């Protein structure tokens, strides 16, 4: 435990510029109607929240999140090509084009997915953590949850269950100030969201400036260690979204107060710049390495777009029906069976 090494910091920079390039490209492709669909929730502005906290995990730990999931997927090392192909609903997408932007997952990375019902993934996180406890493993389940979800029943019930069963969950509230368009203080009686932990007897690690990856990491290290040994913890990441709730959110264009707020965050609390300043102040001239990471990100994302656009769309009835169920010898099917699905 301790401070991140130079190699770690440089890698965080790589991850953060990759996410930003990926997300801004998604935004452009959506505007150009090359990515279709109605849901595309971008992680621009949130980068340090995911990068700093997941740096505290080991490979056997678990991660689950809501629908703002692209950044989480890329941090875990999912192939940007498969992620971009999923945005475009292609067969080569990580979910075969069945899930889209909100449903990225990778079993190989212990990434249990992005979920689209606010709070719906929280009991799933508790269940994944239960499996670890059940089998005597000390792996933690890092669970990202938006500020809005802290007001629904799933949050209350899941945190409470994690407390009574001592489940190793790191509940990270990504507080970006808004649940869709509703400010935290209009939605929550308790505006210091981490303090909701007290209601369930859960250890809170307080509020963290989640535009600063180093601060995020320092707290995450302690919180993960606590969760591994004892039980659930809550951390509140104070962050900001650069592209609204989702790409269809035009409030930032329409409302002066919101666009001024956005400019202020971008000018003073930009996570990539904060990390860059930190690296440069500690290690001097690393401009070349950073520039290389930036150039790589552009190339990787461009390649992902080329790959995704060249990929095939699912189009057959079999594509539609496949994976509704697991193929099973215990299921009796005849030509006249109804509602049996195909495997």
């Amino acid at each position, binding site marked *: 435990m301790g401070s991140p090494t130079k190699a770690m910091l440089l890698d965080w920079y790589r991850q953060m510029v990759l996410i930003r390039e990926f997300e801004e490209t998604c935004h452009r492709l959506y505007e150009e109607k090359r990515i279709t669909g109605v849901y595309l929730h971008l992680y621009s502005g949130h980068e340090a929240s995911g990068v700093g906290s997941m740096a505290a995990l080991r490979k056997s730990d*678990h991660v*689950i999140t809501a629908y703002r999931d692209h950044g989480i997927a890329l941090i875990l090392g999912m192939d940007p090509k498969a992620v971009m192909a999923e945005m475009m609903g292609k067969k080569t997408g990580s*979910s*075969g*084009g*069945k*899930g889209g932007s909100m*449903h990225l*997952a*990778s*079993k190989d990375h212990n990434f*249990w*997915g992005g*979920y689209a*019902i606010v709070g*719906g*993934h*929280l*009991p*799933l*996180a*508790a*269940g*994944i*953590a*239960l*499996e*670890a406890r*059940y089998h005597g493993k000390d792996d933690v389940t890092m669970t990202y949850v938006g500020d809005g979800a802290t007001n629904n*029943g*799933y949050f209350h*019930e*899941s945190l*409470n*269950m994690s407390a*009574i*069963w001592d489940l190793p969950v790191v509940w990270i509230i990504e507080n970006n100030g808004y649940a869709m368009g509703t400010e935290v203080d209009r939605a929550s009686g308790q505006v210091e969201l981490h303090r909701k932990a007290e209601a369930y007897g859960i250890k809170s690690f307080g509020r963290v400036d989640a535009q600063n990856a180093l601060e995020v990491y320092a707290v995450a290290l302690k919180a993960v260690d606590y969760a591994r040994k004892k039980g659930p913890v809550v951390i509140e990441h104070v962050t900001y979204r650069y592209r609204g709730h989702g790409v269809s959110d035009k409030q930032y264009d329409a409302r002066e107060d919101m666009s001024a707020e956005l400019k202020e965050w971008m000018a003073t609390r930009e996570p990539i710049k904060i990390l860059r300043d930190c690296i440069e102040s500690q290690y001097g001239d690393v401009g070349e390495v950073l520039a290389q990471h930036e150039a790589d990100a552009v190339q990787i994302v461009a390649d992902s777009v080329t790959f995704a656009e060249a990929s095939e769309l699912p189009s057959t009835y079999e594509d539609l029906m*496949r*994976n*509704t*169920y*697991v193929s*099973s010898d*215990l*299921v*009796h*099917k*005849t*030509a*006249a*069976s*109804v*509602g*049996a*699905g195909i495997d």
Partner: protein
Amino acid sequence: MPARNVAMREAIRRALREEMHRDDNVFVMGEEVAYWQGTHRVTRGFLEEFGERRVRDTPISEMAIGGLAVGAAMAGLRPVAEFMTINFAFLALDAIANHAAKVRYFFDGMFKVPLVYRAASGWGNQATASHSHAPEPIFAHFPGLYVGCPSNSMDAYGMLKASIRDDNPVLFTESIALYPKPGPMPAEDDGDFLIPIGKGDIKREGGDVTLVAYARGVDWALQAARQLARDGVEAEVVDLRWLRPLDMELVYQSFKKTNRCVIVEESLPMYSFGGEIAALLQENMFDYMDAPIKRVAAEDAPLPYSKEIELLALPDAQKVVNAVKEIV
């Protein structure tokens, strides 16, 4: 397993207990399943036998019960989550319909969700409106989930075992009215007695009319069949056992022989099991149809407290007999 009559509650308890002995990953969770010994006594003795790790009392948190089972199943456990009654499963409908039934699909087969939701279901005993539902068809609406609804002890035993062993999510309902009802069990000791998911059963043979039912409806259909036999009408009783998948092959075979059908269910009449079966019959068996298809279901009202009007709302054998007499 000795060949003797046991109550359906006991048959379910045996199935669950045997599967827990067979596979350490099978565990039960729910309200009052451990220290209270189960509200319906299905998990009686489990806490002592299996311990707190595998017999887990939960708070009154249906949303969390529903969703936690999904996560645990994805991660490799085989949860059997009990909703004390199916009325409370409405609180978990999002977890059931959006996650248990869909995570496999929206991640294109990446995960399995081998879980069973058990829920006591049904009307009666003046339980009043909010505790008086038989809403199995609501849950059978969603592709990705299987729905099993046994009508007797042996079926409950074999169906629950298959549900626990299968890698798909299953909602398993247990008619409260059938819990105490004794019925035969498999003749031999057979821990591997399994009734395949989606396989229906002919509970009585007859050539004059087909009665299609599940769960408690099978009881009413069999009673009606005995009564009809005295008047010289032989009814065939098809117990579908599973609402999803539906064994329509069995219904079609019977209908080709009888050319007449009455559908019997405990559930409400609108957008119902009866509506679905009738639609499938007219689409696929039109040439065999000699009479209108009749449906016997609950009356289209919430259940009241007062006994006389409560019974008025419920289907029974006499209502089935009356429906048959309109078409034979």
